[in-house]
């Protein structure tokens, strides 16, 4: 892929093209692997591709890019994902 030298708002198709969207998060999805039935609904519905699917169809959450929208928790039929308020960042 050719990179342009002009400094303007061009984003290349790559991981994190929008920047570290995880910093936007107010509520954090917490996955309970014991409850997960590997239905992959969270993986299908995540708008930011922040649910990673493993070979055995288990899932994990990429907190670097997860914006905390809560769609995964809403879609999870067995309530294996709950939303928790982020702890206040230490200054």
């Amino acid at each position, binding site marked *: 892929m050719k990179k342009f030298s002009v400094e*303007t708002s*061009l984003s290349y*198709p790559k991981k994190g093209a929008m920047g570290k969207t995880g910093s936007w998060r107010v509520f954090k999805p917490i996955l309970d692997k014991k409850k997960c039935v590997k239905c992959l609904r969270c993986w299908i519905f995540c708008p930011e591709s922040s649910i990673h699917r493993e070979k055995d169809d288990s899932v994990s959450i990429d907190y670097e890019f997860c914006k905390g929208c809560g769609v995964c928790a809403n879609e999870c039929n067995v309530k294996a994902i709950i939303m928790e308020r982020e702890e206040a960042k230490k200054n």
Partner: protein
Amino acid sequence: MTIMIDTGNRIAAKAAIMAKPEVVAAYPITPQTTLVEAIAEYVARGEYKGEFICVESEHSAMCACIGASAAGSRTFTATSSHGLLLMHEMLHWAALARLPVVMCNINRVIGPGWNIWTDENDSISQRDTGWIQFYCSSNQEIFDTVIQSFKLAEHEKIVLPVMINLNAFILSHTSMPAEIPEQRVVDEFLGKHIAHWKSDIDNPTTFGNIIGPAYYYKVRRAMQQSHLRAKKLIPQIAKDWKKSSGYFHGDLLEYYKCEGAEDILLSMGAIGAESKIAINELQNEGQKIGLARVRVLRPFPTEEIIKLGKQANLIVIDRNISVGLEGVLFNEVKAALFGTSDIKATGFIAGLGGKDVTYKDIKSMCRKAIQGTSKAQEWYAMED
């Protein structure tokens, strides 16, 4: 080389067509109309091979140029006054997207009251959009500046849009001779347009995507750096064009009889041309006065103004006003001099609404400034 005796608008159109833009998109507005009509004539005669897009507004004209430029085309448009103001949002867009659109703006009054004569408030009010701004004073200069603007806009160190300003009617509708070089000379000078970034399905990118504060901060700084680089490139390109065509109208400024001057007059556009006659007569009367005509308002020629401020007292004539403050050139000249000079700077507002500013008026303003009888910021020849 041929001599073309024609109006500023038609000579600007000739220059634009000779630069061979792939796309021209424009909407007519007095006093720019004859420029667009001239381009339409080139299309009708088959002399212009590019795409001429008739749009429904100036906002659309600039959008079409932005789209075409983002697709990798050389682009040109022209407008005036309210048309330029309607483009305002897209002027920022073209500059921030680093698209080298070239545009002629015919300096015309803003209404109400409705008025088609010249002053510079239209382009002055767009000076913070990131566009490079030239102000011309003759038809030959318009031709040469349009050609040079394509070179500047598309230069790898610049990649910014450029606006060439000419005064309504005084230049746009006044016939003057201009030397037109062979097409080959323009072709060799400009070379083929190379897009420094473009939308390309083989090299996909998202353009105008959301970017966070840290990236945006860099985008703004990059624009500023390109403007500062343009201060060095504009003189270089002007010299190169002189080698190709023989013509030189100054670079950031045009200096006229400044040697040994104790007072220097600063003005822009057509007043700058008229000022030469005033300077000749004042010198004949024994005044040590010269002229520095500001050709480029953005980037602002700070270093050159500082040099002038070390040599002479400055007299500034503005055909514009930042309402609530003062004339914009006067204000910016004083800002440039801050901390470097304690000379006297005198400002005049003149010619707003297209009021005539003759060489006699300019002489009168200069005399008042030299004698120290003018107000701090005087509205010249205001009839109460």
